[in-house]
C-alpha cells in the first residue's frame, strides 16, 4: 500500500506543467541557460488553476449542502433501476442496488471531504508544530523525535490501520483520526526540513544578532515561512487521503455501508464492469478530478510560496 507520504517534490516539480501554470519569474539574460517552461505570462494564475479551484469549491459545497439538495434518496434501493445507465430519472445512472448515483456521489463527497480535511488537519497541526519545534530547537529533542518518526515511517502502516479498524470498528471518525495520526511523521519531516532551511537564512541570523528571543524569532521569522509550504503540501496530501479511503474501501475497511463513499462506489462497481461501466467510471471521474485539482492547486501554490522559488 502506498505510504502515507504524498509525492511532495515530485508531483509538479518540473516547470512547464499544464497550460496556465506560471513558470517562475524573470531569469538573468546573457546566459545560455535554456528556458524550460513556456514564457511566463507574469504572475497571473491561469485558467486551469481557477477551474481546479472551482471544482474543489463545488465538491466542498456538495459535501456541506448534500442534505438540502433536491436529490434522490441515496439509500433507497430500487431493483427495477438496477445498473441503469444515465437517464432522466437517474442523471448519472444507478448502481448495483438501483440507488441513484448522482445522489450517492454528492453524499459521498461528505466522506471524502471530512476524512481528508480532518486527517490532514491533524497531521499538519501536530506534525507541523512538532517539526518546526524540532527544526529550531535541535539537540537531543531532535534526535529522539526524529528517531521515533523514522520508526513510525518504517512501520507497515497498513498493519496498524487494519488492526485498529478491526479492534475499534469502522467509522468516519475513527478512520479520520487514524489517518491523521499516521500522517503526523510526514508533516514533522516536511516542517523540520523547511524550518532548517529557513533558520539558516540571513534574516534569522540577523534577528538573532539583534537580540531577539528565540520565541520571537520562531513566531515572527520562522513560522510564516514554514506555514505556507506546509499548507501547500497539505493540499496535495488531501488528495492522498481521499485515495486512501478508496484503498480501504477496496479492502472492505472503509466507512461501512449503507453510507455512500466514493471509494466504496468504485470498489463495488468492479463486479459489474461488463454490464455497467458507468458505475465505475462516474465515481472514478469524481475522485480523479478532485485529486487532480488538489494536486494542481497545491503544487501551483507551493511553487509560488516556496522559500527557494520566491527568490529570497
Amino acid at each position, binding site marked *: 500500500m502506498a505510504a502515507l507520504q504524498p509525492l511532495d517534490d515530485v508531483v509538479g516539480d518540473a516547470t512547464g506543467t499544464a497550460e496556465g501554470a506560471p513558470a517562475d519569474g524573470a*531569469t538573468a*539574460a*546573457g*546566459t*545560455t541557460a535554456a*528556458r524550460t517552461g513556456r514564457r511566463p505570462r*507574469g504572475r497571473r494564475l491561469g485558467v486551469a488553476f481557477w477551474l481546479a479551484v472551482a471544482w474543489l469549491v463545488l465538491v466542498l459545497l456538495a459535501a456541506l449542502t448534500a442534505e438540502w439538495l433536491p436529490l434522490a434518496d441515496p439509500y433507497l434501493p430500487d431493483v427495477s433501476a438496477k445498473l441503469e445507465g444515465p437517464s432522466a430519472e437517474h442523471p448519472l445512472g444507478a448502481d448495483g442496488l438501483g440507488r441513484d448515483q448522482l445522489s450517492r456521489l454528492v453524499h459521498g463527497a461528505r466522506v471524502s471531504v471530512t476524512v481528508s480535511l480532518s486527517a490532514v488537519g491533524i497531521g499538519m497541526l501536530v506534525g507541523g508544530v512538532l517539526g518546526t519545534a524540532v527544526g529550531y530547537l535541535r539537540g537531543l529533542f531532535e534526535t529522539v523525535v526524529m528517531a521515533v518518526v523514522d520508526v513510525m515511517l518504517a512501520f507497515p502502516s497498513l498493519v496498524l490501520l487494519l488492526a485498529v479498524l478491526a479492534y475499534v470498528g469502522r467509522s468516519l471518525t475513527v478512520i479520520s483520526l487514524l489517518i491523521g495520526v499516521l500522517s503526523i511523521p510526514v508533516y514533522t519531516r516536511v516542517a523540520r526540513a523547511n524550518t532548517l532551511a529557513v533558520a539558516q537564512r540571513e534574516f534569522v541570523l540577523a534577528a538573532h544578532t539583534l537580540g531577539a528571543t528565540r520565541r520571537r524569532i520562531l513566531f515572527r521569522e520562522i513560522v510564516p515561512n514554514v506555514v505556507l509550504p506546509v499548507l501547500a503540501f497539505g493540499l496535495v496530501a488531501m488528495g492522498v487521503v481521499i485515495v486512501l479511503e478508496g484503498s480501504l474501501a477496496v479492502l472492505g475497511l472503509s466507512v461501512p455501508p449503507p453510507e455512500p463513499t466514493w471509494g466504496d462506489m468504485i470498489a463495488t462497481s468492479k463486479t459489474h464492469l461488463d454490464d455497467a461501466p458507468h458505475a465505475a467510471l462516474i465515481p472514478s471521474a469524481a475522485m480523479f478530478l478532485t485529486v487532480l485539482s488538489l494536486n494542481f492547486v497545491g503544487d501551483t501554490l507551493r511553487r509560488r510560496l516556496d522559500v527557494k522559488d520566491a527568490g529570497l
Partner: protein
Amino acid sequence: MTTTETEPAPTLLRVRDLRTTFDTPRGTVVAVDGVSLDVDRGETVGIVGESGSGKTVLSRSALGLVTARHATVTGSVRLEGEELVGRSPREMRRIWGVKAAMVFQDPMTALNATMRVGDQITESLRHHLDMGRREARATAVALLRSVGIPEPERRVRAYPHQLSGGMRQRVTIAIALACGPRLLVADEPTTALDVTIQKQILDLLDHQRRERAMGMVLITHDLGVVAGRTDRVAVMYAGRIVEHGPTRALFHERRHHYTDGLLRCIPRLSNPGHTRLQAVPGRPPDLVDLPPGCPFAPRCPAAQDRCREETPTLTDAGDGHQHACFFPVGTPEGEEALARNRRRDRTAEVAV
C-alpha cells in the same frame, strides 16, 4: 587585418555584425550587439570585458553553442570561409571539436564528474577520427603528456575530482586539442585557478597555439592576462566592442575611456604606498533597458550631451586601432571634454 575575398582566406575566423538577443519576460535583451572580429591563423585575439559585457555569449554565439529557446543569433560567422550562423546542429557537429574547440572556465563543472578523464578524451577521438580503442587510448596518453600532465598512463584512468585544479584545466585543453582544431576559443581559462597555476596554463595555451599554428581567442576580464599574450585585443562593453587594436598600441595609446578606466584599475608596484585603488565608477548597464547613445556614458568621466544622444561607432585611427568614442582619450576633444566636466564637477572619476 583582413584580406580581400578573392584570395584563399588566411583569415581563420571572420565575424561580421554578430547579434544575439534573448527574449525574456522583462523584454528583449541584446547580449551581443553587432560585433565584428577577425582572427588569423597563428594569432591570439583577446576579448576583455567585465561580467555581463557579453564576451561569453559572444564566444558561444560565434560557435553556434547558444541553445536557449528564446535566443536569436544573426550576422555572419565564417570559419575558414564556411558560414556557421544558421547551421543545423547536425552540420555543426562536423565542426565542433574538429575545426573549432572551446576551453571552458571552470574545469570542475565543464568536465563530466562521473566519467574517467581518459574516456572523455577518447570519446572525441573515436567519434570524429574513427580510432580504435587501443589507438585512442595511446593518443589520449600522448595528449595528456603534451599538456604537461605527469604520469599520464596512470592519470588517464582518473576521475576529475582526483586531479588538482590546474591538472583539470590541462585535461580540458587536451580534450579541446584532441582532434586538431584550427581555432581554439578559451573562455576565461584561468579565472578558476590559482595565480601560480594561471601562468602555466597560459604558457601551455601559447605553446600549443604556436606548435599547431592555431588561431586562438582568449576571453578574460583580466587585463594582465591579455597584456603579454595576445596580438590584438578587443574591449567589450554592453555587448559591443568599444575599442579594438594591436595589443601594444591599445595599452600604450588607449582611446576609449572604458579601456582607460580598466587600465587605471590595475595597482602598480611603482606607486607610492597607500595610493588609493581606483575603480570604474557605477555598474554595468541593464541590457534590457539600454538608454540611447553610448552605453558607457553614465560612467564615463568625459561624457558630453552628444554621447547621450548619438551612439558612437567604431572608427579607425588609421593604424588598425579602432575605437567607438566621440571624445577619445588623449585627443584635444577628449581633453576638452574632461576639463569641461571637471569644471562642472560632473566627473565621477576618482582623482589620482
